[in-house]
């Protein structure tokens, strides 16, 4: 039965094999982090947090669209096509709730005139959550970037703790660093995938 579980998880592992999701979402993380970091370094006004959130939405939608476009052009003809089951209402509601909380909290935190003790602990705590998420992806789906992303998250967490980095800037550097690591390994895997996978043909007996 355990083997059957592993087999039924293989499509999820397959999805990451060509490196495209890591590359695209890595770039997404880097861009998102940069958008917020630039916005954060600008003089405070009422407009930019909302512009940054809007840009983040645009980047996320563009990544999703771009990933599917690249999958159709590069991956599916070589390693086959897979479509996943649409998400149920529970995961959709959870994602929506996280987005709403994030969109509500970020402008409030950014507008804070000064940072208090909790913001110094919050950065390493966020890094720890990134470590857990990365290791989870490694254990559950054999997601190859998991270990590297966990290592990068630990490094950024330690850096935040030692430099007493402010929560928002530390969190954004964490997002940029993990995004960079993901994009790098994704690019490497895509290169290997293109070198080793030819375009598959079903043949007359299919």
């Amino acid at each position, binding site marked *: 039965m355990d083997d059957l579980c592993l087999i039924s998880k293989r499509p999820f592992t397959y999805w990451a094999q060509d490196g495209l999701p890591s590359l695209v979402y890595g770039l997404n993380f880097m861009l998102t982090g940069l958008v917020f970091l630039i916005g954060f370094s600008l003089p405070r006004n009422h407009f930019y947090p909302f512009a940054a959130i809007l840009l983040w939405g645009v980047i996320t939608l563009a990544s999703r669209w771009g990933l599917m476009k690249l999958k159709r052009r590069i991956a599916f003809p070589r390693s086959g096509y897979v*479509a996943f089951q649409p998400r149920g209402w529970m995961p959709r509601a959870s994602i929506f709730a996280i987005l709403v909380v994030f969109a509500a909290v970020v402008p409030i935190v950014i507008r804070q005139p000064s940072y208090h003790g909790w913001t110094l602990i919050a950065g390493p705590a966020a890094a720890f959550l990134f470590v857990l998420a990365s290791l989870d992806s490694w254990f559950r789906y054999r997601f190859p970037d998991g270990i590297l992303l966990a290592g990068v998250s630990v490094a950024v967490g330690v850096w935040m703790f030692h430099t007493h980095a402010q929560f928002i800037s530390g969190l954004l550097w964490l997002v940029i660093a993990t995004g960079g690591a993901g994009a790098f390994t994704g690019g490497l895997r895509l290169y290997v995938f293109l070198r080793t996978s030819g375009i598959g043909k079903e*043949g007359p007996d*299919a």
Partner: protein
Amino acid sequence: MPEVDRVIHEPGRLVIVALLSSIKEADFTFLLRETGLTKGNLSSHLSKLEAASYVHIEKAYRGKVPWTLVRLTPEGRAAFKEYRKQVNLLLEGQNGRSSGEHCRA
């Protein structure tokens, strides 16, 4: 002693059904790659699963290249669920413990 579904119990078909159980649909190339079967073998197993109404096969063309899409039918999903339940019962009978009926994706 519970009876297991012979259509699913064959190793090649079991891998096909297990792969399809966690997704909406996949094409022939994906199944070929993931099962390690030959084209003829995979085609034959798919025909048997289709005959048992466990999979729905859709033939199309991508440009001039044939494209076969396969998806598990509701009957197929139910049969796979039942199969796992029966095998678990058998294993529990042998080992005296549960062997993990559920696997979370």
